[in-house]
């Protein structure tokens, strides 16, 4: 009888071939990275000695710009000991958006990496980077589906909304406001913002108000201090400056 190899060829698919092939690697679903690979935003278990930012973060909108500011201290034990005096807590995550972050240092660094990559993947796939609505919803989704101990402020500018600031929380809540503060020095920062914020601030005034709010918190909150990072987001992009003292901010 004739040997018929095709009789064997059509039998069984190898097991590795089924699920991860169709749902994972190729699949028709163009999902965000963190949904395909939840390991990206999982917690490896919170180490007791993990550095935290404590932190004071502030976001302010003006007519043409969103301004984000943060202090530069990392600490352990809720500000009992300063582990780093030059921590960068305001990071660009999108061509016209940045995040000011408080929480566990390792978590917020991973959060930034994931959001940057998600924005870039979105832009590669669709031709344009995500809108602020899409970006903030995505960021909220990451936080809601992961145990990352991060509570960021997002600030950015897009066609639809103009300049905007969002507060995000660990439960994935996304709220937008003209100005906002977060982190362990939040109450002190809000004191300054409630006094000094006005809707028609010039960009340089907004930068000074944001820096003063961070500076005021740095005076009394032991988990905040060591200088100020200020990012100004306009339609042209994100410009980040670092200052040793609040008075230097212009």
């Amino acid at each position, binding site marked *: 009888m*004739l040997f*018929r*190899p*095709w009789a*064997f*060829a*059509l*039998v*069984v*698919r*190898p097991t*590795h*071939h089924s699920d991860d*092939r169709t749902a994972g*690697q*190729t699949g028709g679903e*163009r999902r965000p*990275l963190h949904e*395909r*690979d939840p390991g*990206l935003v999982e917690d490896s278990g919170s180490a007791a000695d993990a550095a935290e930012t404590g932190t004071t973060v502030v976001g302010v909108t003006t007519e043409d710009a969103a301004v984000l500011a943060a202090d530069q201290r990392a600490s352990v034990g809720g500000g009992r000991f300063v582990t780093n005096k030059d921590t960068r807590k305001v990071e660009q995550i999108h061509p016209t958006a940045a995040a000011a972050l408080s929480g566990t240092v390792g978590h917020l660094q*991973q959060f930034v*990496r*994931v959001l*940057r*990559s*998600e924005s*870039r*993947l979105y832009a*590669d*796939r669709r031709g344009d980077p995500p809108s602020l609505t899409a970006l903030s919803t995505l960021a909220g989704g990451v936080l809601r589906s992961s145990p990352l101990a991060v509570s960021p402020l997002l600030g950015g500018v897009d066609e639809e909304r103009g300049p905007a600031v969002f507060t995000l929380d660990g439960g994935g809540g996304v709220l937008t406001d003209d100005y906002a503060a977060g982190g362990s020095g939040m109450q002190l920062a809000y004191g300054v913002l409630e006094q000094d914020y006005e809707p028609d601030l010039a960009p340089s005034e907004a930068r000074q108000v944001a820096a003063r709010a961070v500076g005021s918190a740095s005076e009394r909150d032991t988990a905040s201090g060591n200088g100020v990072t200020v990012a100004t987001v306009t339609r042209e992009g994100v410009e980040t400056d670092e200052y040793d003292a609040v008075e230097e901010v212009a």
Partner: protein
Amino acid sequence: MQGTDQQAYDRGTTIFSPDGRLYQVEYAREAVGQGAPVVGVRGEDSVVLAAHAPDRSPLAADGDTEKVSGVDDHVAVAGAGHAADTRQLVDLARRRAQQERVRYGERVPVDELATAVADHLQEYTQSGGARPYGTALLVAGHDGTPGLVEIDPSGATRSWRADAVGSGASDAIERFEDGYGPALGDGDALALVLDGLDAAVGELDAADVDATLVTSTGTERVGEDRLRAAHESAS
């Protein structure tokens, strides 16, 4: 009898013929050979990738069809063969590029990216029940140095100074073999790439070309005016 026997070996991807061939993979290469051509030239500090994308009908509504796809800041990919197969591989490359950013905080090296895509293609030559991808890709990137890599349906990769896949590829390659010289600048590489594409399709119209220039500063789609000027200077 002989005919029946030979036919048998092309029923499954995973079956070698007695003379050591995988017919399904070879048929996939045939599909590539029928696809619209894609050509690439590596210059001294840049790579140009160009694809032929003529409007098939005046009724076509998506006018500006993307044939060369951007991957992260520093890579462009184009494929000849089944467009839908290419699309899946482009998305794979885009995801892989961003995974590198998350894992290592760096841009994925061009060779590494090409190998990752090729590994995926290779799986389809070894597991049953699926067909191989009917597309060949050119991956052009700059990761410190310019690189141009071809990936074929078997999952093989190879780096080239100039290369072509798709219909008319051998004519384009012949043109490259004659015209390639060391230390090509951006403009020379662009002119040569169009020359090759012209050889592949015959009577090339610059309006039907989608080209991307990759340099150390990133990827940049080449506008029609520049294409026209480069093409005229070449011919």
